[in-house]
């Protein structure tokens, strides 16, 4: 464990993302105000002791909404990475070991998906399925499938050529058990690194979709949605945009640094050096 915290990227990323996770967890139990409670008398207030980050045009407490928005962002990150990992790893393994036909079919499909501009297609998907948080997660998650499929295929192929796989076969271990017990543990690090980075990308993507009105729907708090609403009042109440924007930057930076740090520490070539 000490190995991880000797890495500056990892430590910084860990602290930043821990704050986001803790904020999200805390908001489930307690927020200064109900994030959706409107108050006609407290509209568009600047930062004060009563409302440390001010209020929006409906008099809702920005701090409470940012805390609640953290739950939203983490949920999106978790679900999209889970979709990408589950389907991507399965397809990647199939491409790596399922023979040439399966490999070609899966990889060409991945190329096809990569060929579309991601944001445009996400907009397309959410406009067809209807704007909602679930559909936004689906749209982002679908784009993660080829990301993880390609990565899995590449690293699994390398592992498959290793002598310990031959040794496992010589011990009479079945092919599926070899994939499960010998290949998967060996490709866990790159998947974890990629997953952390995609987590950050998902937070940004959800914020973008919500900003465009295609993600989280009102009255639920979402950082991107808050930016969208703040736009109208940028001249008179700039803090409405500043704080959600900072929250997005904080979280994305945090998970990116965490991913970079993990890469530094878990890189197989570095891992040998103790």
């Amino acid at each position, binding site marked *: 464990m000490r190995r991880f915290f000797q890495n500056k990227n990892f430590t910084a990323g860990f602290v930043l993302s821990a704050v986001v996770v803790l904020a999200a967890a805390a908001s489930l139990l307690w927020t200064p105000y109900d994030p959706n409670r409107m108050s006609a008398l407290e509209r568009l207030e600047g930062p004060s002791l009563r409302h440390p980050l001010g209020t929006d045009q409906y008099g809702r407490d920005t701090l409470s909404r940012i805390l609640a928005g953290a739950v939203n962002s983490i949920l999106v990150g978790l679900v999209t990475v889970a979709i990408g990992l589950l389907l991507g790893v399965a397809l990647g393994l199939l491409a790596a070991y399922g023979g040439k036909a399966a490999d070609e079919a899966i990889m060409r499909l991945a190329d096809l998906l990569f060929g579309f501009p991601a944001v445009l297609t996400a907009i397309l998907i959410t406009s067809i399925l209807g704007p909602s948080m679930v559909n936004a997660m689906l749209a982002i998650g679908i784009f993660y499938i080829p990301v993880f499929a390609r990565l899995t295929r590449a690293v699994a192929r390398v592992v498959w050529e290793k002598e310990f796989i031959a*040794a496992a076969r*010589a011990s*009479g*271990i079945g092919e599926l058990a070899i994939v499960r017990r010998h290949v998967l*543990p*060996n490709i866990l690090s790159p998947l974890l690194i990629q997953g952390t980075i995609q987590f950050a990308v998902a937070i940004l993507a959800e914020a973008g979709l919500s900003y465009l009105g295609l993600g989280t729907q009102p009255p639920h708090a979402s950082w991107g949605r808050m930016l969208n609403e703040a736009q109208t009042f940028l001249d008179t109440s700039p803090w409405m945009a500043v704080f959600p924007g900072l929250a997005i930057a904080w979280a994305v930076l945090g998970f990116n640094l965490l991913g970079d740090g993990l890469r530094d520490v878990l890189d197989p070539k570095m891992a040998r050096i103790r």
Partner: protein
Amino acid sequence: MSDAALLRIEALRVSFRTPEGPGTAVDGVDLAVAAGETLGVVGESGCGKSVTALAVLGLLAVPPARIETGTIRFDGRDLLRLGEEERRRIRGREIAMIFQEPMTSLNPVLPIGRQVAEPLRVHLGLTEAEAREAAAGWLEKVKIPAARRRLADYPHQLSGGMRQRVMIAMAMVCRPRLLIADEPTTALDVTIQAQILSLMRDLKEETGTALLLITHNLGVVAQMAARVLVMYAGQVVEEAPVAALFEEPFHPYTQGLLRSIPVLGGRAGGAKTRLAEIPGLVPAITERIAGCRFAGRCPHAFALCREDPPALWAIGPGRRARCWLHLHPERRRHHG
């Protein structure tokens, strides 16, 4: 070669698809290993000895490899006719294998205890606790110090020699009747080599397993094997009891191999002699050769050698050689 052979390979022919066209890596190999016996298989890299071993285990990648003809009988069963599932049940249980590279033959992310225990769980259905216990016992048997505490160690925490001991434990846990060792000591320091060889001899004695020892090192064969098979370019060129082979090698290739062993200090008397080598290279597996495959490098070769391939003739008790000199002994050149 009794009929009670544990493993009997007959007329095995394995070809590979290569970019230069099909090539024959193993061409009509016959060999037999009796229960409890040690057979040494010697030859240069690429002579087909490892391919033969992989064919026995059913681990050749098909394609590019293809078993064209031949039978591999193990304990009366024709392995080549068995289904994949039946072959898998034999691997690790009845026939086990040790690989050359102890540094890469262990899974780097699994504790060694689990790796040694895995064949027991797969083949004998032991519970995790039972398998762990047995694994600890085997790590002690292969003389790993403080074996019980080492169960949770990862391969990178062990030296090369220790890893090879772990590999041996992993191969032996199910008490296989045949152990195939493919260059088991080649990657190790000389002092460690001797320890590993003596460990293998002890374990063999204790368990009564037969050993098919593949190596290019004649010294290893001399220490371990009772009988030796010399392979060249996919064929068996000589077979003999180990003492006879070293005293009186028949095939020019075997003679060349023996002459190319470095001797400390050179010849007795002090004058240093140049280490003998066999000129030329092993022919590529895609090459078509009309006569004897060794003719191009052989100091005794004559016209017949280049035209007709010699057969593997019996040349004495327990001895066979694939060389025209058997029928034309007058052609052997005696040089100082």
